[in-house]
């Protein structure tokens, strides 16, 4: 017993918290990278997550692809859509007030959700857990569902890979440089427009990947992204806009804190992200990992 809660209940909630936190981390990472480079508050991010889940749903049910193939194909589809969106529409708004990008991406999110609702309604579509990951393991102090362990592991792996690329490769150095001063980087001969498209597509792919991983656990529904994205914005602000580490760490932290809140005082769980956001904004307006300018 820990503070009157059985260990097994607490441990299960912690796993659930890490599981939710992994989604927060994947989504806020993409959102943060996009904001850092494009200065666009990407409200389409939740819709990218939904699209990832729907792509997986359609690829498995209509095209007979396996879950594993979907993990690669669905994010690629979302990446292509994101690239088209950036090239065709978003690009025209660079240099204008950030509000225009926000409105455009918000409008596109509503459009995507509307189209999906028209065809699928608001009810969730079932999506099976892949066979290899069914079942649970008895760890002695708790039961660990295999799929949740897999989801946490692969999400963290992807976050780690992204972080390594940004911090330690020459492509990552160009991305960081473009975040600081992209005009000068262009003068040096770096094709910044392509870098921007690639970054937006990559952020979209991360969200799409999260959507595929989410599909077997949450049902595939047109509004799944809209429900999640508000919390993810809180995560980005808590971690500090544009901070990679901040997005990952605060994503996981928030998932766990939500879970703990659910154990001790269930009604508070939904409030936790926003209360923490308010406190962080009050004490550290640039977020926990944000750099002062």
């Amino acid at each position, binding site marked *: 017993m820990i503070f009157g809660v059985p260990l097994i209940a607490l441990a299960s909630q912690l796993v659930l918290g890490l599981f939710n936190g992994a989604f927060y981390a994947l989504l806020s990472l993409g959102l943060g990278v996009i904001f850092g480079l494009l200065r666009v508050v990407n409200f389409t991010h939740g819709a990218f997550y939904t699209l990832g889940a729907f792509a997986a749903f359609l690829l498995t049910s209509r095209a007979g692809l396996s879950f594993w193939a979907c993990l690669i194909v669905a994010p690629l589809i979302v990446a292509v859509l994101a690239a088209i969106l950036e090239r065709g529409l978003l690009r025209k708004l660079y240099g204008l007030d950030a509000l225009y990008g926000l409105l455009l991406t918000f409008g596109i999110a509503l459009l995507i959700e509307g189209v999906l609702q028209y065809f699928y309604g608001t009810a969730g579509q079932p999506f099976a857990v892949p066979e290899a990951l069914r079942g649970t393991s008895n760890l002695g102090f708790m039961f660990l569902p295999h799929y949740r362990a897999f989801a946490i592991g692969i999400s963290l792996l992807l976050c780690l890979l992204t972080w390594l690329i940004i911090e330690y490769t*020459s492509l990552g*150095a*160009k991305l*960081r*440089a473009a*975040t*600081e*001063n992209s*005009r*000068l*980087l*262009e*003068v*040096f*001969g*770096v*094709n*910044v*427009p392509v870098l921007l498209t690639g970054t937006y597509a990559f952020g979209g792919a991360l969200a799409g990947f999260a959507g595929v991983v989410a599909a077997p656990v949450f049902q595939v529904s047109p509004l799944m992204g809209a429900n999640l994205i508000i919390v993810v914005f809180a995560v980005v602000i808590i971690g500090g806009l544009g901070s990679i580490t901040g997005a990952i760490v605060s994503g996981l932290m928030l998932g766990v804190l939500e879970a703990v809140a659910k154990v001790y005082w269930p009604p508070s769980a939904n409030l936790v992200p926003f209360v923490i956001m308010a406190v962080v904004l009050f004490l550290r307006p640039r977020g926990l990992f944000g750099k002062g300018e």
Partner: protein
Amino acid sequence: MHEPLLRIENLQGWYGESHILHGVSLSVPRGQTVAILGRNGVGKTTTLRGIVGLLTRATGSIRINGTELIGMPRHRIAYTGIGYVPEERGIYASLSVQENLDLLPKISDRGISLERIFDLFPNLKERRRASGGTLSGGEQQMLSIARVLRAGPELLILDEPTEGLSPVFVQHIGRVLKALKEDGLTMLLVEQNFHFARHLADHFYLMEEGRVADHFSARELDARLETVSSLIGV
């Protein structure tokens, strides 16, 4: 007479709505160093920024090796052979010194090796792991020159390379630029420090109110010292 490496004709340039350049014409012969002199606000920096595509709007003609730069996408301009050292130095604070040195795409095989860079600027070798944001002004200027040399430019464009530097750094940068000149590198520089420019340049352009007021070779400089001094206020 050979075609100059860089030829600017009747360059008109705008920053936002303000019309700064009113028909600048100048040329930089291959292998030579050309200095643009003039008071603050006459359009020297704007001329350089016009060459690398950083103005809101530009008309006229800027040709390097016969290739027109006006209208060219900004990220292609470097590949015509231009290396740009901006007035504000443009060091990326979130990148290490080494990352700044490796940042620029190679634009030719003339790029200077890392060994030679560290030979020219020993300070950078010591500080290669430091973040760009922690460098002193002099170190930043060295890094700004060094990283662009690694890309292999044919024409080095320097905007106020000695501005705000201590005499030791000014001398050091002077020595390096002289060595590069002896290697045959073509340079176009804007410089407030007249004595610095005097020791380096083969040809001078004097700017006033967004256009070229006069130009003359280094040999003709002595005869005009008085007019030049009064015009740029040294």
